[in-house]
């Protein structure tokens, strides 16, 4: 594993499987009555959020606390592009505070990479979503969820499984991260979007692209609906919400096109009615709530591995942990 997690494109198949397998161990911890490991005791993890995301921040925070890390929430909303406090100054502050890892969410694509490549900060950098670029831990939790349903078992990948990702691919960091990771894990990905919301050069990506949702659903083992922001409508990406829903929304008729075993996913937050009919979101075909739970396990695994976890996470006893402390 590299020191940072910036893009799923940086993960080898072995890296990705190691994270998913470690997340399985972490999931066992989360099922215990005492949901805590001493693994990151004495380590400081900073959640640096330049953009509001209660869901992602909370998920990371729970993961960090279950690993006994010292957690600092650094909310810098609004200061990202404003004069005064630059990313560099913030990074230097965190470095001075001795951050071992920085989990960064930023509205600017590339901000986490900038941080990781700089010499402002020596700790690990975890990308918690940057602009319209990537959101690697979301993709990892999606893959984790898919594996549990479609090919369960430690060491298993997603070879031959078909995943359809639908919606505003152009602005979706979730889609970008998923395409890389699912490809690495052997899955076949089809992106479905109106042409205005399809990224330039998508034909060079390791996936298929289509404007026809019905055709893409019939073979899918998993379908992932993406969030569509209403302001896209004003920028003429599509004519009306109604037309979008008619052509790219997941309704009951379309659910019927899916194979019976196929699962329905959504990275959240959902716009019910627009991207996905409410009854489907609440049905047993949807694994949306599982995705949230799996997010904690996957983020625990990522932090554990980035911060030097070399032994199986779950066998840590108080004795071995004490030795670790001494050898630092």
């Amino acid at each position, binding site marked *: 594993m590299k020191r940072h997690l910036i893009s799923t494109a940086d993960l080898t198949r072995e890296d990705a499987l190691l994270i998913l397998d470690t997340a399985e161990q972490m999931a066992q911890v989360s099922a215990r009555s005492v949901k805590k490991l001493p693994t990151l005791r004495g380590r400081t993890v900073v959640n640096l959020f330049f953009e509001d995301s209660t869901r992602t921040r909370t998920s990371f925070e729970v993961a960090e606390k279950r690993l006994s890390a010292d957690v600092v929430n650094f909310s810098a909303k609004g200061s990202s592009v404003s004069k005064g406090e630059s990313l560099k100054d913030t990074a230097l502050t965190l470095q001075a505070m001795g951050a071992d890892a920085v989990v960064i969410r*930023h509205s600017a694509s*590339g*901000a986490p990479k900038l941080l990781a490549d700089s010499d402002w900060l020596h700790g690990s950098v975890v990308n918690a979503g940057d602009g*319209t670029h990537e959101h690697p831990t979301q993709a990892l939790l999606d893959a984790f969820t898919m594996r549990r349903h479609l090919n369960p078992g430690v060491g298993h990948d997603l070879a031959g499984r078909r995943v359809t990702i639908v919606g505003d691919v152009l*602005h979706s960091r979730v889609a970008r991260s998923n395409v890389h990771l699912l490809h690495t894990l052997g899955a076949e990905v089809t992106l479905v979007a109106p042409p205005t919301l399809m990224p*330039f050069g998508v034909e060079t990506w390791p996936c298929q692209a289509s404007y026809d949702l019905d055709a893409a659903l019939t073979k899918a083992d998993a379908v992932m609906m993406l969030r569509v922001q209403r302001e896209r409508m004003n920028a003429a990406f599509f004519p009306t919400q109604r037309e979008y829903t008619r052509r790219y929304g997941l309704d009951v008729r379309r659910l019927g096109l899916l194979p019976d075993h196929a699962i329905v996913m959504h990275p959240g937050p959902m716009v019910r009615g627009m991207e996905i009919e409410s009854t489907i979101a609440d049905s047993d075909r949807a694994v949306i709530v599982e995705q949230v739970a799996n997010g904690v396990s996957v983020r625990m695994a990522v932090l554990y591995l980035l911060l030097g976890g070399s032994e199986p996470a779950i066998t840590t006893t108080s004795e071995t942990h004490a030795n670790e402390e001494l050898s630092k």
Partner: protein
Amino acid sequence: MTHYLIRNARILGGDPQDIRIADGLIAEIGAGLEARDGEQELAADGLIALPGLVDLHTHLREPGREDAETVYTGTRAAAKGGFTAVHAMANTFPVADTAGVVEQVWRLGRESGYCDVQPIGAVTVGLEGKKLAELGAMADSAAQVRVFSDDGKCVDDAVIMRRALEYVKAFGGVVAQHAQEPRLTEGAQMNEGVVSGELGLAGWPAVAEESIIARDVLLAAHVGSRLHVCHLSTAGSVEIIRWAKSKGWDVTAEVTPHHLLLTDELVRSYDAVYKVNPPLRTEADVLALREALADGTIDIVATDHAPHPAEDKQCEWSAAAMGMVGLETALSVVQSAMVDTGLMGWAEVAERMSAKPAAISGIPGHGRPVSVGEPANLVLFDAQYRGQVNPDSFATRSRNTPYRGLDLSGRVVATFLRGEAKVLDGELV
């Protein structure tokens, strides 16, 4: 005033000759000239002599952003780059849209003494694209402005552009357009292409440049005026200029050194040193631009030297300022992209970087051939030199160069302005 005898310089890359400089002029050229009393002899074995370079597109930042550059530091950088004249863009604070501001810039240039500064006047008041600035007053001022540009912004209103083209005919002016359709480039962060799609950065499509150039060449032809297109960056733009020239229309175009060498693949680093407007394009665009510069479709190289302080570049890509410094590396980059590749010789370099830009602006005393009786505006260039670019030695106040640590060909050894050495042994005098 020191007189110089330059020994064994290769004029435009030709056979070694001696050049005598006296009283601001090139006094004598020949083999084995005899040194006179009080003359300083300079050994120029292997060095190439070129006419002093002329930059039609420089941002000197003064007045208003003296933290990035001043006329003094910018002209020192220009001299180090082999330039004896630069044209200062109008997007300063206040904007150079009145006779007062252009005269101020012009006077600062004369006082700095390192190279001549010819101000460019804004086309519209405040660069706002709404109302013509007093173009005639700037033309009549001490600065004698002939080039007008809202550079940094596109004159996108077709009627305003038409009127500007028409109006400057009265005093032999030219409108230099920054071609960027504003709606198509809202929020644009880099070239729209495969790389922008992967990086999740909003794209600046080639058509946003090409559609404005197409409109403007038609407007210029319609009103019978002169148009100059700034910093061409796409293969499609080249085709439009080629077509306009085939019609015999009075259209000229420039390309920057960086658009001849760098591609949008570099943006993968998210290092804002590569953020520039127009953006770095693809390999195919770079090759088309090189070919067009070689065959004369693109008339000149212009640096678009755009200094920014570190804090405006060491930040998130989307928050970073656009632009890169270019004066001190221009000739080396052109050598790497055009000469070392066999596309152009040194005579063509002199044409594209001195004679033609001087002709477009009509600036007197520059862009003249290296021959007896001409003003001694001269560069000695060591094309054999190979070395890494070290921005810490730059004279410009800013360090936003994409070439840090890169191996580039060539080095300016000496620059003479009207017979006075401004740079010797690569150092400012």
